[in-house]
């Protein structure tokens, strides 16, 4: 933590009374930042004792976003419990302090500050929407915290204080488009999304790729306000334009409306005329949409609950034992699960809880036990990961139909796509 410093010029301009007030405040801050425990694994005064270490969980458990963020909270708690059962991190049990972001972006910033300044947590697992991350980011950079962020997102960001455990846009999108062009012979694409930063950036990348790399055509690009519930007009436009692929990044409650109306309009998604390819519908969303209404669409993501590998089977089993048999696990939930494990590996590699040392140790960290298979942290703080294509089945699960051969390099600032 950086000590507050007073520039003389600034001090000189202040009034006498303010000086009087400022000095004790500075002394108090200086006092509390002296390491409470002179411990070699903790030289910066984080909340670490001889047997415990405190971390933060910061997601919305109330408000609109609670629908999406619940799975992440469950995954992070499960990972922490499993790590504790294995003996913890550097011999210390993890204790978590959970805060509620309440689907309100300033609250995320406020709670981040509370976790970092007051609780002095060694890491925070949290945020979900890009807006909440953008709100919390300055706090993490100012107070030098470490945030493990689970959601697939639009890229164009790389902070020394964040590890991005979900995919950035190019990892998720390009492989999906290539697959549709190669396997399905797609030539005409229709881009449809909710109207905010993630779909717009994603479609910008998609359009460049379709036009410049695949040499194909975008026949429509369209955005609807968040929470829109009437999609009959766009369905008519799709019928008229006859694209080969409809590429969809619609989110939230709109998803349910869109797929139900698509089905009601007599479009059989299983016929693949057009083929529907989404980057926003995980198994979590299908719960609300209903498997029978979305059967036959494809999703391009790094994780599906049905992945057959052993890691994943053990993960799904443990998750269900902990949180109930009816639960489903989506892409982001799995990415959230990686957070505590990646942090543990970095702390152990560094031999210290110090944020700066953990940051330095993070690039190159690999997890061979990840449910999605194998992941490695890139020096840009994103993960190397594979991308898969899943086919939605009536039981609400995806069947994996394709998997990239190699790990895909994260590229948050893709050249030629901006």
């Amino acid at each position, binding site marked *: 933590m950086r000590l507050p410093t007073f520039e003389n010029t600034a001090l000189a301009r202040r009034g006498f009374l303010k000086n009087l007030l400022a000095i004790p405040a500075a002394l108090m801050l200086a006092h509390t930042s002296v390491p409470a425990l002179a411990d070699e694994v903790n030289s910066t005064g984080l909340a670490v004792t001889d047997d415990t270490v405190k971390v933060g969980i910061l997601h919305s458990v109330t408000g609109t976003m609670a629908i999406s963020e619940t799975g992440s909270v469950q995954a992070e708690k499960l990972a922490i419990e499993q790590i504790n059962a294995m003996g913890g991190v550097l011999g210390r049990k993890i204790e978590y302090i959970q805060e509620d972001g309440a689907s309100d972006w300033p609250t995320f910033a406020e709670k981040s500050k509370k976790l970092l300044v007051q609780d002095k947590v060694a890491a925070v697992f949290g945020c979900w929407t890009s807006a909440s991350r953008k709100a919390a980011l300055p706090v993490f950079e100012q107070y030098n915290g470490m945030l493990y962020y689970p959601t697939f997102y639009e890229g164009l960001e790389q902070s020394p204080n964040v590890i991005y455990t979900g995919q950035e846009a190019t990892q998720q999108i390009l492989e999906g488009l290539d697959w549709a062009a190669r396997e399905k012979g797609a030539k005409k694409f229709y881009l449809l999304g909710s109207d905010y930063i993630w779909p717009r950036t994603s479609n910008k990348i998609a359009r460049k790729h379709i036009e410049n790399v695949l040499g194909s055509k975008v026949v429509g690009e369209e*955005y609807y306000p968040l*929470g829109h519930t009437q999609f*009959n007009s766009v369905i008519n436009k799709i019928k008229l334009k006859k694209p080969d692929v409809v590429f969809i990044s619609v989110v*939230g409650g709109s998803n349910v409306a869109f797929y*139900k109306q698509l089905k*009601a*309009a*007599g479009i059989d998604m299983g016929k693949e005329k057009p083929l529907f390819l989404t980057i926003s519908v995980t198994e979590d969303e299908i719960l609300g949409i209903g*498997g029978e209404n979305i059967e036959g669409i494809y999703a391009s993501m790094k994780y599906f609950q049905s992945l057959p590998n052993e890691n994943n089977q053990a993960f799904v089993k443990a998750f269900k034992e902990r949180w109930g048999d009816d639960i489903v696990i989506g892409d982001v939930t799995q990415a959230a699960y990686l957070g505590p494990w990646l942090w543990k590996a970095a702390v152990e590699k560094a031999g210290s809880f110090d944020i700066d040392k953990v940051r330095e140790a993070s690039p190159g960290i690999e997890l061979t036990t990840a449910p999605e298979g194998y992941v490695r942290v890139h020096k840009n703080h994103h993960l190397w990961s594979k991308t898969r294509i899943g086919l939605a089945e009536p039981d609400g699960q995806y069947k994996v139909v394709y998997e990239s051969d190699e790990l895909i390099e994260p590229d948050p600032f893709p050249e030629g796509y901006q």
Partner: protein
Amino acid sequence: MFAEYSASELTSIFAMQGFAGLILFSVFVLMALGLAIIFGQMGVINMAHGEFMILGAYVTYIISNLFADYLPSIYGSYFFLAMIVAFFVTAALGAFVEWAMIRHLYHRPLDTLLATWGLSLILQQLYRTVFGAREVGVTLPDWLMGSYPVTDMVEVPVNGLFVMGLTIVITVGVALMMQKSRLGKQTRAVVQNRPMAAAVGINTEKVDRMTFALGCGIAGIAGSAFTMIGSTGPTSGQLYIVDTFLVVVFGGASSLLGTVASAFTISQAQSTMEFFLSGSMAKVLTLLFVVGILMLRPQGLFTLKVRH
């Protein structure tokens, strides 16, 4: 922009687009009717209208699960029962809310705004506690999810027809009730002149409660019907509240005919523009159009002529 399409394609698309507009119109009327009664007749700004709708949706969800478990043989018909139960459950909650909260606020219309907004937050959290934060999937009977092919290009969604039919039945029912029935006449009497209505022996408190309950009950039916086209989650009600107020205010708060006319205007404007422009831009222009008209005609499209 139409050069690349054949004449028959264009005809089909315009037919389908017209139909899409009519479905939107029905949805608007259905969601606004309950509010038109409560806001228009009683002057209560009910910010919890969306949450009453979602209660109807959750009732539908429960009934569909009960049918799937105990009466799978007649599963296809659960939807009718669900709508009736949704009406009575939400009406009962409405009556309770009126008794516990609203009746103390009749002389402070702006306070009803805050109080009902608080109520909406309470209900959201209640749904979250009872049903979980995730959206629930309401399984629909197969006959509701299909479509009826008219030609190769033109397909009429059955649930769209269903919503239109339901809207007509309920609108006509409400209109008849307000004009002909005892409760309807009493309601209008109370709205127009409360002391005089009380003086001729109308139990105005009871009328208030019945009217509020009726508005909530209709919201419940709307919510039940909207499980066909939208999501069911603790905060889904918020998706409807803005459009609902828009329709009611634009139509002229105290006129049911105004609500219908306003729903028609807004839905046609929006669906036509959605076809030619992108979705977000269509919404912006629709709102601009409504704001423009309201500046010229602050009382809304239709008003009742009442001597004060």
